[in-house]
């Protein structure tokens, strides 16, 4: 027999620290059915009993305001866990109790874990745990998870609470619907009238009638829908109407009645239970004085983002190179040791290089997520959207879009994964769609090749202009999509600024690992598949298998499918003046943009003197157009795989179509204007 326990709490209460402390190594990470919200399930063993621990998303409330809230609510109603552990922040009990009251309304079997007791102590906040327990009718366990104080008490309380409830249930054998002493004095008569009608319907038995009644008064859309489709709606409708009318007179709107009553109760509880003594300046206040200042804070954000960027891409570089080296040698070993040439090439040039392509992302992602988790855990991350909100809003983007945009200059894959902090779905889709336009580091080799070959005097300016072009197109696209597709303004910024603290290494490392693992598992297969497909198109032609010599023989690869695709594309790109080799190289660029350079070398049969060959095959105008095209066209396979994971195939295909068209238009414009100016 295994007990199921759910952890729930506001964001920043230290929920993941507690989850980590309770569960061991065996953590399953997946998604909640149908949505991209992360689901974490772990296991705990205590006194011979087994517990399944489900980590619910961090929420402030149980309305249906965000996917996170819907996920949490649906789980509580449908799965009915043995115990819900509500984790609250002792330094902000007032706000945290709002969720606690709603959990009581829903009728969950509850235990309150009061975290950050040490911090509360430092701030001069005293919480009378015993009294809180009496008022709420719920076991309360004080703890400081980051200092590992109180974890054993929590485990014991979990076991005891579950077993006590089991015993009670056997004796009474009835649903104890009024299990909590918390009542809303001004609403109770209404709640009773509604719930007495609701109880008549057997089909609504899985809900707590009190919860349904409160939600009806609160005008919750989801519950309204359920009740409207039930048998009792006819009896209930006139009663509900009357109640709402009465409440409107008193509170303005019936929804406000429930909110107001909840906070009234909370105010009274807090008055009884919490004592505040000193009011000295905290570290957080001092830091925020500087870090959230309009001028200094904005100036300081630049070095912070620069460090994030440098750390991610520079620190990971040696590791990526080692992985590349290992896979390159592995290919060589396979090619020399397997006599069947077809099989050897499939393994070496297809599968191994595909797996290698996935794994070279591993260090970049690990370092990025380490840095992001570090900033998150320290509390600084929440301040970034605060500072950037106004600027980003001008382009129809939310303040939180800054971080993914900066990351995009390194690699679009982690950048797109970093959009997960944006709650509003439309805001998130928009932020993802513009991201491939930001010039990732894989595009630099292409710029370097062409700028070196044709613009030797202005190399720096030409390369920089590509980055600028990317940013301009990204912001213009954001503006345009906001007007044409989403037609809404970005969601208002409402974000809690948590206390700063020194990050806990184990939390940071665990978060990092979970995120990287998630990428490898999901995007990995798509990338490997893509690489193998391109391999297939290179070694096969209409005449059949060409042999793996194609990769060294430009005359041979001219007969492959890739070349044929390139030749088919040539008329389309005639206005830009690119030959079929350039077009074929673009096909290879789908794997990863830097592959374009290697492919050009292969297709032109040029090794070291590629620069010279390029200088003859392209004019400055056609080269500039080619660079711009490489910047914009098609996100690479890895990026595409991540877009698909995050927001689905529909948007991934939309991104492909949009970027292809945009790339073509921009390249064409450059050619036309270029020819006009320079003849």
């Amino acid at each position, binding site marked *: 027999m295994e007990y199921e326990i759910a952890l729930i709490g506001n964001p920043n209460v230290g929920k993941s620290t507690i989850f980590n402390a309770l569960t061991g190594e065996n953590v399953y990470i997946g998604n909640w059915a149908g949505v991209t919200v992360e689901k974490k399930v772990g296991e705990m063993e205590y006194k011979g009993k087994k517990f399944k621990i489900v980590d619910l998303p961090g929420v402030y409330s149980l309305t249906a305001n965000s996917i996170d809230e819907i996920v949490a609510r649906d789980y509580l109603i449908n799965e009915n866990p043995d115990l819900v552990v509500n984790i609250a922040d002792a330094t*902000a009990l007032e706000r945290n109790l709002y969720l606690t009251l709603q959990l009581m309304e829903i009728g969950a079997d509850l235990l309150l874990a009061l975290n950050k007791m040490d911090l509360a102590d430092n701030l001069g906040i005293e919480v009378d745990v015993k009294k809180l327990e009496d008022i709420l009718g719920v076991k309360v366990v004080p703890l400081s998870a980051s200092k590992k104080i109180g974890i054993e008490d929590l485990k014991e309380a979990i076991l005891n609470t579950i077993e006590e409830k089991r015993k009670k249930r056997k004796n009474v054998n009835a649903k104890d619907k009024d299990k909590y002493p918390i009542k809303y004095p001004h609403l109770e008569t209404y709640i009773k009238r509604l719930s007495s009608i609701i109880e008549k319907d057997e089909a609504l038995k899985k809900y707590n009638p009190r919860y349904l009644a409160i939600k009806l008064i609160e005008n919750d859309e989801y519950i309204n829908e359920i009740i409207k489709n039930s048998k009792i709606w006819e009896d209930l409708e006139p009663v509900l109407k009357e109640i709402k009318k009465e409440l409107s007179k008193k509170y303005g709107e019936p929804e406000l009645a429930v909110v*107001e009553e909840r906070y009234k109760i909370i105010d009274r509880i807090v008055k009884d239970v919490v004592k505040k003594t000193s009011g000295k300046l905290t570290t957080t206040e001092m830091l925020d004085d500087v870090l959230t200042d309009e001028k200094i804070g904005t100036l300081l954000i630049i070095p912070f983002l620069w460090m994030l960027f440098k750390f991610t891409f520079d620190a990971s570089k040696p590791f990526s190179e080692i992985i590349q080296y290992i896979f390159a040698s592995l290919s060589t070993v396979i090619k020399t040791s397997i006599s069947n040439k077809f099989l050897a090439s499939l393994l070496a040039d297809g599968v191994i290089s595909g797996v290698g392509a996935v794994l070279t992302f591993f260090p970049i992602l690990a370092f990025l997520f380490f840095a992001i988790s570090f900033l998150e855990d320290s509390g600084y991350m929440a301040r970034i959207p605060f500072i950037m*909100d*106004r600027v980003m809003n001008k382009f129809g983007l939310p303040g939180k879009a800054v971080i993914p945009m900066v990351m995009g200059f390194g690699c679009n894959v982690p950048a797109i994964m970093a959009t997960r902090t944006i709650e509003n779905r439309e805001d998130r889709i928009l932020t993802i769609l513009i991201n491939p336009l930001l010039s990732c580091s894989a595009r630099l080799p292409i710029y370097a090749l062409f700028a070196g070959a044709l613009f030797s005097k202005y190399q720096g300016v030409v390369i920089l202009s590509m980055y600028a072009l990317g940013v301009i197109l990204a912001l213009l696209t954001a503006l345009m999509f906001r007007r044409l597709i989403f037609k809404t303004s970005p969601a208002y*910024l*409402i974000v*809690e600024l948590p206390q700063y603290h020194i990050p806990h290494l184990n939390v940071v490392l665990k978060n990092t690992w979970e995120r990287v693992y998630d990428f490898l598992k999901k995007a990995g297969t798509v990338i490997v598949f893509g690489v193998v497909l391109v391999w297939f198109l290179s070694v096969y032609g209409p005449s059949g298998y060409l042999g793996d010599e194609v990769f060294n023989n430009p005359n041979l690869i001219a007969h492959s499918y890739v070349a044929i695709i390139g030749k088919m594309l040539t008329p389309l790109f005639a206005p830009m003046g690119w030959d079929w080799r350039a077009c074929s190289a673009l096909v290879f660029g789908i794997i990863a943009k830097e592959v374009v350079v290697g492919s050009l070398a292969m297709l032109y049969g040029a090794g070291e003197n590629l620069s010279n060959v390029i200088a003859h095959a392209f004019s400055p105008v056609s080269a500039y157009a080619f660079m711009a095209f490489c910047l914009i066209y098609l996100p690479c396979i890895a990026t595409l795989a991540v877009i698909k994971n995050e927001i689905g195939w529909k948007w991934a295909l939309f991104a492909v179509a949009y970027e292809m068209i945009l790339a073509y238009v921009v390249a064409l414009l450059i050619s036309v204007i270029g020819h006009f100016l320079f003849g």
Partner: protein
Amino acid sequence: MYPLAFTKEGEEVIVKKIDAGAGATQRLTSMGINVGSKLKVVRNQNGPVIVSVRGSNIAIGRGLAMKIMCEKC
């Protein structure tokens, strides 16, 4: 009654009315900002407003801060 966006840093106000849509109002409510809450304005420059409410600091976008009506307390 005046919008939260017009308050001064250090000022303490009571929320009298929230004119935002249902979604934003609910989010504010669940983070401790409802009609009747006492707010202390921590930061109010040109960007979002930071208020201290019920023991935590919340940043509110300027557009939304225009829709939260307050009174001095």
